């Protein structure tokens, strides 16, 4: 469950002031946020993810207002309840696939259950890469690892920032399906932010900025 109210943001004191429409999602609901670049899509995502502090307004996740949390508590809350997916998938290159997922669990203070991780890799069809180094993975495998990293800790919200921008139509569809599937499996909200019109048909809730 996630709510935003009267969110505004300003990068510096004389920069543009962004106003964002309110978002109100119940459990397991997903949302597509569409908008051209420069309109503040990523800013909105980072506000929801607690990585940026709004100039005014509030973000509430499961009845906890992010604005009331500070420092370590905020870090912990984000780590535990939010999973981020990026356009360009990235993981720690000095660790292999399974170690990256373990590190993800370590920092959000969760059990590093190996069978849970392997099950996840299996559903994402990359179990055979589990001991591979990041630079040995193909683009597609990396994409799947990115999704695995965003859901391995069973978050309440999955936030995806342009997850399909660099993908062809087929892969675009696959990635979206995987994200929807994983959010359902984890009973999580999925918010996808994009300018990619291709994925419009896959969402019921659409917010255009």
């Amino acid at each position, binding site marked *: 469950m996630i709510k935003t109210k009267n969110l505004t943001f300003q990068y510096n004191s004389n920069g543009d002031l962004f106003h964002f429409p309110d978002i109100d999602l119940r459990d397991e609901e997903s949302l597509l946020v569409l908008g051209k670049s420069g309109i503040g899509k990523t800013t909105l995502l*980072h506000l929801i993810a607690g*990585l940026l502090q709004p100039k005014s307004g509030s973000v509430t996740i499961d009845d906890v207002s992010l604005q009331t949390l500070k420092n370590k508590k905020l870090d912990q809350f984000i780590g535990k309840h939010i999973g*981020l997916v990026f356009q360009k998938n990235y993981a*720690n*290159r000095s660790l292999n696939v399974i170690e990256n997922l373990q*590190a993800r*669990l370590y920092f959000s203070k969760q059990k*590093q259950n190996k069978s849970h991780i392997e099950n996840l890799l299996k559903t994402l069809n990359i179990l055979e890469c589990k001991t591979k180094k990041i630079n040995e993975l193909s683009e597609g495998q990396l994409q799947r690892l990115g999704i695995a990293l965003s859901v391995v800790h069973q978050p309440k919200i999955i936030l995806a*920032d342009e997850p399909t921008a660099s993908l062809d139509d087929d892969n675009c569809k696959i990635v979206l399906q995987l994200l929807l599937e994983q959010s359902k499996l984890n009973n999580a909200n999925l918010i996808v932010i994009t300018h990619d019109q291709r994925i419009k048909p896959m969402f019921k809730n659409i917010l255009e900025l």
Partner: protein
Amino acid sequence: MNIWKISIKNLFHKPLYTVLSILSLTISIALLISIKQLDTSIQQQFENNLGNVDMVVGAKGSPLQLVLASVLHIDNPTGNIVYKDAKKLAKNPLIKTAVPISYGDNYKGYRIVGTTDTFAKLYDVKINKGKDFSKPMEAVLGYDVAQKTGLELGDTFLSSHGLNDDMGHEHPETFIVVGIYAQTHKVIDRLITTPLESIWDVHNHHSEEDGHAEEQHHHDDEDHHYHEEGNKQITSMLVKFRNPMGLITIPRQVNEKTAMQAAIPKYEIERLFNFTGIGVKAISWIAYIILFISSIIIFINLYKMVKERAFDLALLRTYGASNFQLIEIVAIEGLITSLIAIVFGITLSQLGLLYIFNILGKQYQQSIPSTLELYNVFQIILWVLLVVVVAILFAVIPILKMNVSKILTDEK
């Protein structure tokens, strides 16, 4: 998975940088420890070699030479003194022990020292095998002499004239080994001791045969008993005082009122170290400069890691890691690097010193115990950790200023 594992994986992800950091730090640590240990060992060895000798009395000349020759046995003597004069001086109540020594010959480069049974007491040495000398031409070998020459009890040997192996001809008189001293790590380890009379006898006959007396070892051919020790000469006399008062009054008295010279070994050795100390200081400075450079290398490596992996670190923040945990990762990388370097550095220094001491022991004919003062090692490790911690502190500044949102946006 935990912070430590992540740090270690990071370290060995780019081994070249890590190896470079470790290598430079290892070299500086090894150099620092070696030079310190070498310096302490040699100083201690010199002090050891001084034994209980508070003052040495010999012929006039350089006091340093007198000490080097008569106490440390690494230089030629300044000349001879008249035994009678020395004995007269020895009667001074401030003097506890006065040991006459006379030398001028060697066996395979090991000096043969004519003296009395009080000589061994100066070095607190016990007989290990056999007995003390009691008659002329009986000899007691120092530990290293016995080890290196292989001479055993009952063996006989001929002395050569001069103080070095290759200098002179052999004397016809044979010495017999009656005892071997225990190891002391003092100068007595590389000396052959014998009664004063042996030296007199050897040179006495020598001059008889050669038909001309040598200035240094000359003494009359006539009856020993008649002359008593009237004209006999010794090389020098080693003195131990009863109390510190002796140190104040006697040396001056000797230098001003007699034809002899008094030198204080401690003082002369200190003077010597003031000269050689410059070399030690120079090498120490070089080692500290290398330490400084390696701290910069470590800083650059850590800083590079923080900068290059800014996105990784920002990603960890979104995983729930706190700023402090990121700093921990960097700090652990730095500390592991320095710990490995400390272990390697100590090992390298000890291996190097083993080699150096081996060479020194051979040249010096005496095995030198290597003294590693823990206090010094701790001091060096503390220095190393200090510079590494400073390097870490500078390297983590970007983490403190990190803007996760910006890094994630820019990297896209």
